[in-house]
């Protein structure tokens, strides 16, 4: 068996809900899961023995530790790589040389680039400390919001509403690629099949697409993905990092199961 631990934040939920489907498609894979309280690296300790433990009480129903000693691979999902910083900057300022949105003040593209470089570099340093650059670990950025997400300010992805979101996305991606290249972790950028356009996920993969009839989606339901996404993303991971292709694929359930994770 190949033992894979999927750890991270609320985005772990997509893989938890796809667990049955993943294990059916990859019978040689055994999964375990762990979510960091409050999304915070500082909420956990990765001890010398290889056990990752929450330092504060997790939400009811969540495991408070995971033993990574016997794990072959660690997939750390849902990492923001400082996207929220870009969101705040673009929300408050126009960017010179890009489409203007009637903000009172502007910043230069060079500043945006340097700012992201600073923030992503700092994020990567935290990542490196967190699992001590354990070479078994592959890091995946958080999925982009669904293409049909209503425009809402004050979300970590509001910069994607910018008319030049493609360029801003590229500046961010370049910073992630550059700084992750110096770490011992693997980096799994978003597979093409899970992108509707630069910075957007296909509608069908978000939680909003899988809610039971009568449920009204919240903003988080457009930024968090469903079980179909969990299976598709894991398939990409298995192909590239495990050398596995799906065998007997079982259609995943589209019904959401929070399994206690929800959108934290």
């Amino acid at each position, binding site marked *: 068996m190949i033992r894979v631990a999927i750890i991270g934040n609320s985005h772990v939920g997509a893989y938890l809900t796809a667990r049955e489907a993943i294990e059916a498609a990859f019978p040689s894979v055994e999964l375990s899961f762990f979510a960091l309280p409050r999304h915070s690296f500082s909420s956990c300790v990765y001890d010398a023995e290889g056990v990752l433990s929450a330092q504060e009480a997790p939400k009811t129903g969540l495991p408070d530790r995971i033993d990574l000693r016997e794990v072959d691979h660690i997939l750390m999902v849902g990492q923001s790589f400082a996207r929220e910083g870009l969101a*705040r*900057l673009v929300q*408050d300022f126009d960017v*010179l*040389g890009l489409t203007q949105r009637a903000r*009172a*003040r*502007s*910043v*230069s*593209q*060079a*500043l945006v680039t*340097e*700012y992201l470089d*600073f923030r992503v570099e700092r994020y990567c340093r935290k990542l490196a400390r967190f699992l001590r650059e354990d070479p078994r670990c592959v890091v995946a950025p958080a999925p982009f919001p669904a293409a049909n997400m209503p425009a809402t300010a004050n979300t970590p992805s509001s910069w994607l509403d910018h008319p030049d979101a493609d360029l801003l996305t590229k500046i961010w991606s370049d910073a992630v690629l550059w700084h992750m290249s110096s770490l011992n972790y693997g980096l799994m950028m978003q597979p093409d099949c899970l992108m509707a356009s630069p910075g957007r996920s296909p509608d069908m993969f978000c939680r909003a697409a899988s809610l039971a009839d009568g449920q009204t989606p919240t903003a988080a339901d457009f930024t968090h993905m469903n079980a179909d996404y969990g299976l598709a993303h894991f398939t990409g991971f298995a192909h590239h990092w495990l050398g596995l292709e799906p065998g007997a694929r079982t259609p995943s359930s589209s019904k959401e199961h929070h399994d206690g994770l929800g959108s934290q």
Partner: protein
Amino acid sequence: MKSPYQNLEDRAFWRACVGRDDDAALARLWSPKLVLDRATPLMTAGSCFAQHLHRALVRGGWNVLQGEDMSVHLPNRLCHRYGYNLFSARYGNIYTARQFRQLVEHALSDDPPPVLCWEKDGRYFDALRPSVEPEGLGAPEDVRQSREEHLSALRSVLAQAGCIVLTLGLTECWIDRETGLALPTAPGTIAGSYDPDRVYLHNFTQSEVMADLRATRDLLRDHGLQAKFLLTVSPVPLVATATGHHVGPATAYSKAVLRAASGELSLGDEDFDYFPSYEIITTPIAGGPYFDQYGRQPTDEGVQLVLKAFGRALGDDASATLETDAVSARDHGQDEETICEEILLEAFNR
């Protein structure tokens, strides 16, 4: 027999007061004409040393105006690299009285501001503040937009300011022949290229400096703005002179002119006061001089004494704040490099 020196305070006598940096001595270094307290909205501007003053005043809890604040968004290092939060607005270093006059004229004018662009490797720089975008901008139009936004923010700062703390740094200035604009640095230093047919060097005299400062004050009053001026002179020597003279005497000329102009204005005009930061750093009156090992940059100890003397003279007991500031200064050491175009001149000379 009577002498006019009889019964004078200790501070009138060199031997009685020189070399003392205790609170009582610091309090006597300056007799403020202007009525200032911690609530007075201060606008800071000037040369490299003004950055030290700005930081020290902010840390000391004074009400320093910040028209283009980026501290919420950016770390200090990046703020400063892009000219934010170095002064009360993002105008970069203002070395001469003419530059400051020109800046205020542009901010208060109803006409579109003149834009002078320098080009380097396909990037465009605002010649009136070339250091604020270290990588330049993509098009002259971006320079124009950025300048308009800056002047709009500056208008707001001027409208609020109760006192402008202006640190005069130089008398030597490059002037653009076509526009008559005073430049903060020679073309070819940060961007652009030096062409003697387009720029010339002017070394301001005392009367010219005074005329520029008075004209600035008059302009503010014409617009109903009430800010008074607290003048200081930067103790930082010239990094280079283009006059053909030795840099030492050229520095002495520059500082003497600025000091004399400040002194004359302070003596004869109620809108101007002079604060002796120059003397605190460069002379032994408060235990100095306070220069680093290269004899050019003021030490942190000297800058802290300047702020302490400022507060003490105003009857402000800020010792607790100052202790905290000292810790803060250490913690942020890596972010606290003073931004100075003049340093680039040295690079060109290596």
